[in-house]
């Protein structure tokens, strides 16, 4: 992390700021400091902040709540970095309504009660204008009642199971149908898959995802049949019995949502058992560039992943983003789907504040629907009235170097539908 030295993320040191600025060469025209002042005068604090948030004439305070320690730190670091990068870039452009963003960073420590405590601290004590944070469903579930009670605003970056919609949350990742349906249709059409073997870690996200997948395969799109459905505890590392079942079932497609440390064992053991990409088609919804770092490109090369973003996306927005990210966090850093979704959070918030002309949470919540972001690395995105994002689905094929080659892309933005009819 670029800000290791500075525990509470106040502005970067000069050297770090220069790095970030250099990375922004491709960003649209920067605002002059004078313009920022003029803009701040145009939006007097008394007017843009009627609910006693931590907003002054020159500064707006936001919170960042991820696990910097504990088992989830490895996953959440990317989001922490991307959110910080976006905030630094926004500050360099003059901030939001002429006010610089100051971040108060809290550590959820991979522990859900801690997430609850810290979110309350950010909202009640620090009176932050919004919070960028959470990663796992469990942490989101722990903080959601607090955000609703204290009327805070959370920008949540992870693709998740859906079945949730809150005035106080903007979901910048995909809900389950956005990630799953296109992938399954593509598998049936392009890969002629008729039988599917569903396998996942045993918690709410894979369970819900597989429920949707099964309905889609069997009754909605009638793609074929489900040859097996298996779940393993989080952290499970012995997949021999699963591999035997797969060998017996001989499915056209393994559809996988195995997460965390289990991923490494899962792909290594598949390879050891001879189930490799040249013989077996596998589509996963849980492996991004971040996970491939742990799995190793050689263990997963040739398999497919269904995401909305891959680091290799070929467009001008993404090239500028990747360059800025690598300048800030080193040339070896990789960017996964969730990291990109984390990067969207501050930008969407900025656009919403400017549209609403206010930092008040109620006004932001009301103004969020219809917010557009043309500069998103994944391409154009739009916020739906239900606080999820319209976004495209893409299929990437894992390469030896740990990157993905994009082989398919949904022609249109897919509408978010957290409560899909016919899939319950």
């Amino acid at each position, binding site marked *: 992390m670029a800000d290791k030295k500075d*525990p509470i993320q106040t502005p970067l040191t000069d050297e770090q700021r220069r790095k970030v600025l250099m990375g922004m060469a491709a960003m649209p025209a920067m605002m002059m400091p004078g313009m920022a002042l003029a803009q701040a005068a145009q939006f007097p604090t008394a007017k843009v902040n009627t609910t006693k948030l931590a907003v002054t004439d020159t500064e707006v305070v936001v919170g960042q709540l991820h696990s910097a320690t504990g088992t989830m730190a490895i996953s959440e670091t990317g989001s922490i970095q991307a959110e910080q990068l976006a905030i630094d870039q926004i500050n360099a452009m003059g901030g939001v309504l002429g006010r610089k963003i100051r971040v108060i960073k809290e550590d959820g420590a991979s522990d*859900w*009660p801690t997430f609850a405590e810290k979110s309350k601290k950010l909202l009640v004590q620090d009176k932050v204008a919004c919070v960028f944070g959470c990663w796992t469903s*469990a942490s989101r579930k722990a903080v*959601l009642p607090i955000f609703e009670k204290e009327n805070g605003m959370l920008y949540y970056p992870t693709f998740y199971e859906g079945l949730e919609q809150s005035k106080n949350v903007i979901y910048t990742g995909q809900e389950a149908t956005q990630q799953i349906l296109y992938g399954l249709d593509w598998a049936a059409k392009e890969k002629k898959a008729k039988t599917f073997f569903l396998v996942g870690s045993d918690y709410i996200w894979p369970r819900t995802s597989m429920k949707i997948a099964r309905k889609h395969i069997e009754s909605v799109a009638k793609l074929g049949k489900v040859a097996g459905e298996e779940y393993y505890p989080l952290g499970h590392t012995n997949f021999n019995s699963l591999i035997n079942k797969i060998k017996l079932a001989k499915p056209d497609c393994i559809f996988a949502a195995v997460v965390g440390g289990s991923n490494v064992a899962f792909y290594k053991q598949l390879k050891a058992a001879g189930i490799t990409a040249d013989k077996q088609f596998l589509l996963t919804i849980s492996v991004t560039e971040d996970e491939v770092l742990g799995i190793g490109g050689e263990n997963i090369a040739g398999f497919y992943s269904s995401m909305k973003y891959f680091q290799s996306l070929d467009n001008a927005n993404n090239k500028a983003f990747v360059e800025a990210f690598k300048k800030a966090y080193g040339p070896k850093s990789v960017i996964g789907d969730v990291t990109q979704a984390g990067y969207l959070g501050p930008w969407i918030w900025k656009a919403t504040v400017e549209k609403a002309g206010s930092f008040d949470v109620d006004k932001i919540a009301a103004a969020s629907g219809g917010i557009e972001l043309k500069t998103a690395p994944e391409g154009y995105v739009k916020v739906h009235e239900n606080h999820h994002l319209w976004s495209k689905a893409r299929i990437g094929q894992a390469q030896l170097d740990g990157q993905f080659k994009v082989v398919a892309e949904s022609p249109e933005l897919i509408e978010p539908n957290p409560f899909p009819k016919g899939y319950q």
Partner: protein
Amino acid sequence: MDSIKSWLARSGMGSVLILALIIVVVFPLTMDLFRLNLVGKYLTYAFVAVGLVMLWGYGGVLSLGQGVFFGLGGYMMAMFMKLEASDPETTKIQSTPGIPDFMDWNQITELPLWWEPFRHLPLALLAVLLIPTLLAFIISFAMFRRRVGGVYFAIITQAVCLILTVLIVGQQGYTGGVNGITDLKTILGWDTRTDEAKYILYFLNAGLLIAAILLCRWIQLSKLGTLLLAMRDKEDRVRFSGYDVSMFKVFAFCLAAMLSAIGGAMFVLQVGFMSPSLVGIVPSIEMVIFAAVGGRMSLVGAVYGALLVNFGKTYFSESFPDLWLFLMAALFIGVVLAFPNGLAGLYESHVKPRLGKRKDKPAAGTDSTPSSDVPPATPLHSGAPHGGKPLARTALPDGVQGTSA
């Protein structure tokens, strides 16, 4: 006056009074509601620590699985509140309205039978108290009857922790899985999330905690307390004297379990959710650390320990988000190295002698020093010479009763 003074000194009620004053008067006056709510959460852990003083400090039985009972108590409470929060009106978006949301997500279409009792508050409260205690009885009866003790018992408590965590995570349709039971709102229609409710719950929690300390103190001062101490220091001598040692241990374990369960239920009331991360091995060991930091022989010390460690955790993690784990580790190592008897030991060895010089003469029994097999963590203050003569069938030595609260 003098008789009151000497009673205070003998029973250790002075320190309990001071503690009560601090948590009931000083904290509410000096803290805003957010911080007070945090203290309320810390004080729910103090129930576990107080139970550990009785079990570990007095009974000599180390349990590394108190999270099981804290968690069970919490889950029982959470189940009641979840059912109340899941009325058909608010859950009409689900495929099966009227059941908890996580059941609906897991394709369960009707409420499992064993959830039914938790529709009723009296039954739920009874379950909070009795089910963890019953489980504690079964575990400890099976173990102590076979004279399994010491390290082996500690390992078994860890295993129970692990089993319960795996069970809760695995049976997510019935328990909420990794997410736990969240979004708890009301109890018999009374909103627990309002400012007023938070004050009431804080004082209820503080009152229960003080009552728990008084109960434990009463047990310590009774013959039972003396026997527990005796058993810890010379188990065989107590057994040969005709006492059923195992049942005393079972009692101490059940007592600690019930206190932990009350703490768990209060946790849910104040924090608003329950999750398996409070059941596992790590929180269980953390709770032992609270007792160790406070001083494992001291009931009020345990409360201070729980407060200090949690204040430290909150403060360090807010001020140094990248470094806080190291600072916490330094705190633990520092306390154990510098003050093996915890805060209470520090008080006994440094503060009390200075106060005592002026005030009271040492109680009877300064002549005896603790025998060699007293664990090093026993406070070595002048008032508690329980080492040599815990078994006295005649009048109990004053010194035993003088063990501080």
